[in-house]
C-alpha cells in the first residue's frame, strides 16, 4: 500500500475574477522510504500540494479529491484534531527560508525539545531534563552539527542559513516522521551548503527509512537519491515516473523542455548559441488556458490540446499528453 495516495486532488479559490483552479486533478503516490521529487516552476502549485497534505491551507479554499489517503486513511474525512494528530506524528516539513520558519524568540534547544514526542522522555523531573538535553544533542549530531552546546543556546538570528536549515531538519526528524516534505530546502543557498543539505536529506531517507517529498524548481536540483520524479505545471500534472526513465526519455514536451533548460544540459551547447527555453511565460491565474495548460507554450501543440489529456502509461512512467515525445518504435 502506498504511504501517501493522492488521486485527482483539486484546489479551487474564489478570486476577484471568479473561481480559479489552482490545482487541477493532480495525482501522486508515494511509497514508504521513497525519495520523490516534485518539480515545477513557481506558481505551479507544488507548495499548495504540500500544504494540502500537511493540512495548513487557507480554510477558505476548496479542497476536493477522489483520494487523499495517508496509510489507507482518508485525510479529508478527518476532524481537524485527528488530522493534527496524524500530521504531528507522521509528517514533517522544512522550508526554503529556514530563518523565517524558526521562532525568533526561542533558543534552538527549546524548539527542538518541543518537537520531541512527550512519550519519549520518562522518569523523574530531573532525569527528564537531562534526557531531553542528550536527545537534542543527538539530533543535532545526526544533522551534522558538532558543537551542539553553542548551537543549542543560540537564537535563530545568530545562525547561518545552512545551520538554520540543519536545525529545522533536526526539528523535523525529532519525532521520526514517516514522511518529510522539503519545500525548496536549498533554493536560496550557496552551492556548498546546498550540497551538504542535499546529502544530509538523502542520507536521512536511507538511515531512517523515511519518505522524502522534495519540492524543487528545476530538474537540476533534485536529490541524487531520488527514485521517482513528478513534474507539475500550472497546477496540472505533466509527467511522473522513475527518475531515470523520465529524465532519459521524457514523454512530455514540458519535461523535455525542463531538462533542456537545466544547467547541466547547457554544458553541451555550442558557444554563443541561444539558451533553450519555452516561448511565452507562465500564465497568470486570471488567464488559465483551457485543456492542457501548457498548450499556448508547447511547440508540439495541436487542436486536440484544448481538451485535457487523460493519463497514459509507458513502462515506469505516466504522462498527460496527446502527442508524447520519444515514443518507442513499434
Amino acid at each position, binding site marked *: 500500500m502506498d504511504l501517501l495516495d493522492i488521486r485527482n486532488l483539486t484546489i479551487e479559490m474564489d478570486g476577484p475574477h471568479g473561481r480559479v483552479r489552482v490545482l487541477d486533478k493532480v495525482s501522486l503516490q508515494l511509497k514508504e522510504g521513497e525519495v520523490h521529487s516534485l518539480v515545477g516552476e513557481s506558481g505551479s502549485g507544488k507548495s499548495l500540494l504540500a*500544504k494540502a497534505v*500537511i493540512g*495548513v491551507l487557507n480554510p477558505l479554499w476548496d479542497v476536493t479529491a477522489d483520494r487523499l489517503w495517508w496509510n489507507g486513511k482518508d485525510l479529508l474525512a478527518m476532524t481537524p484534531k485527528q488530522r*493534527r*494528530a*496524524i*500530521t*504531528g*506524528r507522521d*509528517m*514533517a*516539513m522544512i*522550508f526554503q*527560508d529556514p530563518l*523565517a*520558519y*524558526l*521562532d*525568533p*524568540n*526561542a533558543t534552538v534547544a527549546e524548539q527542538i525539545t*518541543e*518537537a520531541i514526542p512527550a512519550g519519549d522522555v520518562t522518569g523523574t523531573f530531573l532525569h527528564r531534563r537531562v534526557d531531553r538535553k542528550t536527545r537534542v544533542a543527538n539530533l543535532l549530531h545526526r544533522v551534522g552539527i558538532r558543537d551542539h552546546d553553542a548551537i543549542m543556546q543560540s*537564537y535563530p*538570528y545568530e545562525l547561518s542559513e545552512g545551520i538554520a536549515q540543519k536545525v*529545522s531538519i533536526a*526539528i523535523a526528524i525529532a519525532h521520526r516522521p514517516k514522511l518529510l516534505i522539503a519545500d525548496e530546502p536549498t533554493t536560496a543557498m550557496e552551492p556548498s551548503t546546498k550540497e551538504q543539505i542535499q546529502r544530509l536529506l538523502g542520507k536521512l531517507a536511507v538511515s531512517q527509512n523515511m519518505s522524502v517529498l522534495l519540492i524543487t524548481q528545476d530538474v537540476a536540483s533534485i536529490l541524487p537519491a531520488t527514485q521517482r520524479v513528478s513534474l507539475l505545471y500550472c497546477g496540472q500534472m505533466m509527467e511522473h515516473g522513475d527518475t531515470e526513465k523520465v529524465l532519459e526519455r521524457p514523454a512530455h514536451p514540458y519535461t523535455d523542455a525542463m531538462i533542456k533548460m537545466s544547467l547541466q544540459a547547457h554544458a553541451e551547447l555550442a558557444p554563443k548559441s541561444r539558451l533553450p527555453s519555452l516561448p511565452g511565460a507562465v500564465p497568470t491565474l486570471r488567464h488559465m488556458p483551457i485543456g492542457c495548460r501548457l498548450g499556448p507554450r508547447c511547440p508540439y501543440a495541436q487542436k486536440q490540446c484544448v481538451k485535457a489529456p487523460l493519463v497514459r502509461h509507458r513502462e515506469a512512467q505516466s504522462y498527460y499528453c496527446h502527442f508524447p515525445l520519444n515514443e518507442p518504435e513499434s
Partner: protein
Amino acid sequence: MTRYLMTRLFYFFLALLVLSVVTFALNWLFPGDPLTNMSGIRVGQVGYETMLASRQFDSTVVQQYLNYLEHIVRLDWGLSLSTGTEVWQDAATYMVVSAELVLLSFLLAVLIGMPLGMLAANYFRHNIDKVILTSAMTGYSIPVFWLAQLLILLFAVQIEWLPITGQINPLYAIDSITGSVIIDVLLSDSQYKLAALQDATLHLILPVLTLSSLPSMLLLRITRNQTIEVLQKPYVKAARARGLSQQRLLFKHALPNVLQDVLPQLTFIFGLMMANLVIVEHIFNWPGAGAWLLKAIIERDYPVIQMVLFTLMALILAINLLVEVYRGWRFPMTREERYGGY
C-alpha cells in the same frame, strides 16, 4: 547584556538630568522670586537670608544648579508655600495613595487588554472579534471625565451599589499609616476590620475602573493587531504544520513575539494613565498625588508642582528603563538590533 544595561542606565540618568534642568529653569519661569519658588521660603521670612547663602544664590547659575541637584538627591524639595510643611514629607503619603490606584488600574488594564486582544486576534474577523473590537472602540472613544460621571450616576446614584467618592467611610476611623487604604485597614486593629476592608474595596472599584478603561482598550487594540501579525508569520505556520495545538501556538510561539513589541507600549500607556490620574483623583476626591498636583497648581504652590512633576516623569522614565531591560534580557534579538548586529 552588560553593555546594553550600561547604555540603558546611561540614557536613564541623562534623561533625569535633562529633566532636572527643566525643573530648575521652572523656578525662574514661574512668577515671583526664584528662591521662594525653589525652597518655599518667602522674601523677608526668617531664614531667607541663610537660604540665600546656602543655595549659593550669590554664585553663578551653574553653581546654583549643582546645589539644586544636591538638594534633589537629598530629597529636599523645600517647604510647601500653602501649608509650610516639608514637601517630601507630604509627598510620601500622597504617592502611596496614588500608587495603590495606579497599580490596581494598570494591573486591571493588562489583565483585560492583553487576554481579550489575543482572544480577538485568535478569532480574527469572526463574531467574537467584532464584538470585542466594537466594545473596545466604544470604550476608547469615551472621555475619562465623562465616563467617571456616567459610572457615578449609574452605579452610585441610580442603583446605589457603590459609594460616590472618597477612599473609605470615615466612620470606620482607620488611621492613615501608609496611605494605601487596603494596607492601612489590614494593619489597623479595628473591630470592624472585615467590614472596613469591604468598604475600602467598594470605594476602589469606580476609580480603578475609570482609570483603567482607556489603557485597557488601547492595550487590547495593540495586542490584537500585533497578534494577528504574528499569527501570520512563517514560524507560526511551521509550528502549526508540526501539528501543535492552537493553545500551544498562541502561548508558546505567538505570545513571546507579541510581548516583544507590546512591552514598549506599556511605558506609553503608563504615561497616559499619569495624565488621567489627575482627572480621576479630582472627580473621585481621591487624596493622591494627582489631586495634590491640581491643588498645588490652583494655589500656585511652586515647590509642590516642581516635585510632583519631577517625580511623575522620573517614574515614567524608570518604568521605561525596567521595561527595556526586561525586554533586552528576555528577547536578545532586540538588543542586537540596536547595534546593527554585534
